């Protein structure tokens, strides 16, 4: 039971991170119908900016952790937003209206470019960051069983994720910006005819997705303490799996899918050979694609006309 609880805690923290990345995939897919394969790289760049930010703040003598966290968070979101915006501008917008495969190939190209760019500019070696947030709570320790650790960092991850998702859901459901995004997603021609600047809405969608990925990057840097230029690939593919599992194009689906992928991974690692955890995750992707291609919360492609 204690062991189970521990896996649950680990799974939820991991799932929160996947969910943050998955939102970027699902939003971009919803609005322009393409898989932005460079999105994992955005997350990786977010992690690197966080690392650099912490090191810079350290040299400037800002060591008060909450302040440093906030500064780094803002920096990471700002810079990755610029990346997200630029990627859409350079790699996807010129291809809008051409065959569907073209932006997909362009996305893969962009992904390779960004990976190599970071590899060359930051070096290929693994970058460590000393743990900034230490300590935590120990649950069920008095009954002499397996001690369950709930670290402060895990609490932080879950709290930040839930806050961001709530804010995000509010923006999409209730604000004029969110309404314009949904309108663009449902009927781009009509959104234009209603006076929506569709290009701007698409840019903003990339910016929003990138900002959330930056938060995930920051969390991972703190959580694992090591990053390298290659982390975007696996995390990106897993978040993509999460988005598909939840139903690509669906925002609650991305959140649920992220959580499920995190849990599957944690429980598999806890009870089965850990080396097969990625196999387990991607088997889920295959099963979903075979038996429920629209995902858990996705909608079937039928609509009353």
């Amino acid at each position: 039971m204690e062991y189970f609880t521990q896996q649950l805690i680990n799974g939820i923290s991991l799932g929160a991170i996947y969910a943050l990345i998955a939102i970027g995939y699902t939003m971009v897919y919803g609005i322009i119908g393409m898989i932005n394969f460079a999105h994992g790289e955005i997350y990786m760049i977010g992690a690197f900016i966080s690392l650099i930010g912490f090191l810079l703040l350290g040299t400037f003598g800002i060591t008060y952790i909450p302040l440093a966290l906030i500064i780094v968070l803002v920096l990471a979101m700002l810079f990755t937003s610029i990346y997200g915006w630029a990627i859409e501008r350079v790699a996807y917008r010129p291809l809008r209206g051409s065959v569907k495969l073209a932006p997909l190939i362009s996305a893969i190209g962009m992904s390779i470019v960004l990976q190599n760019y970071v590899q060359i500019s930051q070096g290929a070696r693994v970058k460590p960051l000393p743990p900034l947030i230490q300590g935590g709570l120990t649950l069920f320790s008095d009954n002499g069983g397996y001690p369950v650790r709930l670290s402060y960092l895990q609490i932080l991850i879950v709290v930040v994720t839930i806050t961001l998702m709530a804010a995000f859901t509010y923006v999409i459901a209730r604000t004029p910006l969110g309404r314009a995004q949904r309108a663009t997603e449902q009927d781009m021609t009509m959104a234009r005819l209603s006076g929506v600047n569709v290009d701007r809405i698409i840019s903003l969608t990339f910016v929003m997705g990138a900002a959330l990925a930056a938060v995930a990057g920051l969390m991972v840097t703190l959580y694992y303490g090591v990053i390298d230029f290659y982390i975007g690939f696996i995390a990106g593919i897993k978040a993509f799996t999460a988005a598909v599992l939840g139903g690509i194009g669906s925002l609650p689906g991305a959140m649920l899918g992220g959580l499920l992928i995190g849990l599957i991974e944690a429980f598999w690692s806890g009870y089965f050979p850990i080396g097969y955890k990625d196999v387990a995750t991607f088997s889920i992707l295959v099963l979903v694609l075979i038996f429920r291609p629209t995902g858990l919360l996705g909608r079937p492609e039928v609509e009353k006309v």
Partner: protein
Amino acid sequence: MLTIRDLRSGYGHIEALHGIDMEVSEGQIVTLIGANGAGKTTLLMTICGSPRARTGRIVLNDRDITRMPTHEIVRLGLAHAPEGRHIFARMTVFENLQMGAVTTPPRYFAGDLERVLTLFPRLHERLDQRGGTLSGGEQQMLAIGRALMSRPRLLMLDEPSLGLAPLVVRQIFQIIREINREQGVTVFLVEQNAYHALKLAHRGYVMVNGCITLSGTGEALLADPAVRAAYLEGCTPTGDAAATGAEQDNVTGDRSRHPTGVGPSVAARASATGFSQRDRG
């Protein structure tokens, strides 16, 4: 209000409009009739900037909008309720109306909403329902209501009667007349339902294969033998449709530019589409 000069436009390698000249004057209802595939929808979409005009000029209220992006054209007081209604299916009726008001300052919203809901009481009952679940007639009302939310000076309607029950069609045309008379909105109406449209309109244009072949007042076109043969087959001539000789002179035929004019094949197509217009409302 809207002036079009020598407009050519189309999709890909196909030119759909071969030099259109027309005029929509302030305060009028102007209708454009023609068979399926004549280019009516292309004309309206070209006015909105997508597809782009290849040559020619489109002037709206003294502003040249030929090269303007769509969302900016809409801000100049032009609203378009496109063919097929284009309701945002997964948004509520209320949100659809909010989308119509994207270009207007928020302080007008409450009053405009009130006005649209008075015009279409049915929408009031359905405010929280998703657009995709409405019936065809309700969707058309929503499409017009949404267009009105942008406080247009020129309202363009593309086949508002398509696929609707005769009773609903009459209702829609009644409302168009009201919008024009009471709210002073200029209306540019594209229709296949030529009889209703010409009865309503101050001025009409006939389009055949991407060219304007005839134009004149609504009554004059209703009385024109060529129009009658091609578009009004099966419509019983009524008193108000009968034309005097003076009105007959208003018809400016231009059949020389288009040698076939409104030939029998067009007439056959027009009556064929008449049959296919079943009640789906």
